[in-house]
């Protein structure tokens, strides 16, 4: 079960990794200090709130023999949080090579450890769509609409989908925002909805809504 003790453990790891990153930078000028800012952003208030929401609504649906593909996993915070709920196989997929370097340190003491694949998440899922039993993304707004369509069209009917997106236009990397949870459910081509909902979040440029849909 995900608790405040788990959250403290996650924050402690983030602080330790950040400190090590800064220490390493003193001896290697190629080390990118923006990574520390980026790592803090991945556990900011909104990130944790959205993932706690997901764990609360989807955690009980995950069986230990499930095989889960997380597209756009970033540093793997969701996989860390889900590990408190399930022993299922978790693959984190991200194009950013450094997410694996940091992410593997973040989940180092978890059992079983989530894995990393550094590639396009849509490609990874489509190549292995019959093997994965759960398709998850908390960053659907980052996936271009045509690629999102390919992803959902390829998904077998019995695969569980856990999808979050938002209607926050102010971030320029948001290429596929969803005005409502119904828009998201439609794009996910979900026939049997187990959960759908929206929550208000405070962004840098004002309030926005984050949506989540779970179903098959």
């Amino acid at each position: 079960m995900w608790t405040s003790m788990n959250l403290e453990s996650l924050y402690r790891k983030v602080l330790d990794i950040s400190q090590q990153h800064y220490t390493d930078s003193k001896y290697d000028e190629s080390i990118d200090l923006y990574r520390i800012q980026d790592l803090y952003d991945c556990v900011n208030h909104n990130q944790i709130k959205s993932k706690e929401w997901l764990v609360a609504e989807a955690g009980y649906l995950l069986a230990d023999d499930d095989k889960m593909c997380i597209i756009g996993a970033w540093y793997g915070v969701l996989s860390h949080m889900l590990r408190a709920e399930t022993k299922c196989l978790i693959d984190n997929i991200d194009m950013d090579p450094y997410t694996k370097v940091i992410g593997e340190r973040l989940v180092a003491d978890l059992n079983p450890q989530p894995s990393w694949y550094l590639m396009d998440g849509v490609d990874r899922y489509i190549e292995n769509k019959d093997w994965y039993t759960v398709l998850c993304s908390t960053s659907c707004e980052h996936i271009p609409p045509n690629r999102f369509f390919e992803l959902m069209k390829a998904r077998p009917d019995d695969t569980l989908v856990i999808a979050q997106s938002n209607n926050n236009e102010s971030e320029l990397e948001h290429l596929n925002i969803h005005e409502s949870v119904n828009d998201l459910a439609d794009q996910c081509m979900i026939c049997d909805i187990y959960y759908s909902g929206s929550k208000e979040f405070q962004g840098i440029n004002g309030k926005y809504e984050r949506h989540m849909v779970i179903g098959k």
Partner: protein
Amino acid sequence: MNIIFVKEGPAYKAVHVNNLFKALRPYYPDARFICYTDDPKGVDIECIPLLYPLRKWWNKLVLFSKEFPAEGKCILFDLDIKVVRDPREYITNFHPLHTVSAYWKRDLPKYRIPHAFNTIINSSVLSWTNHKQTHIWEHFNTNRDYFMRKYRGIDGFIYNEKFNIRHHEDGILSRVESPLEGAAIESWNNVDFNEFGITVQKSA
């Protein structure tokens, strides 16, 4: 010679493109004028539809991709500029990528602090030879979302990722907030741009 404008989203209108075309055509009568846009309505020049789903200024990087359909010398002009006089004397080099040197920043130490990832270049006027800068686009695509989080725009990306670039001579561009007398082009970069009764708010 290709003269290219990028118009994505609702902020800038066809009138901005058409006016710049009229202002620049006398100096580049044989050029191919191109507008790379998601909305060709009302644009009087050749339009090329978006090749990749990017937003706002990040679309300028697509011009360096091998898929961008142009040949030879290229000049990009931003839409928040006014042509004051003939800019050709300043735009004479097309390899490597040439940018504006941001005279309003380059001597201020705060813009050179490495871990601030700021920039002392400006991309309001770019010149390059098409298909000779594909490495810029390819590098961007290796880690697109991270770069868009790390840098506010393509100026920071190009400067901090340390591509081999050069600069146009000073005098190509004057920024309205800190004017440079006699410059060929006035830029409203980061300032509300009010032309043709349409105000485009800063950072639009």
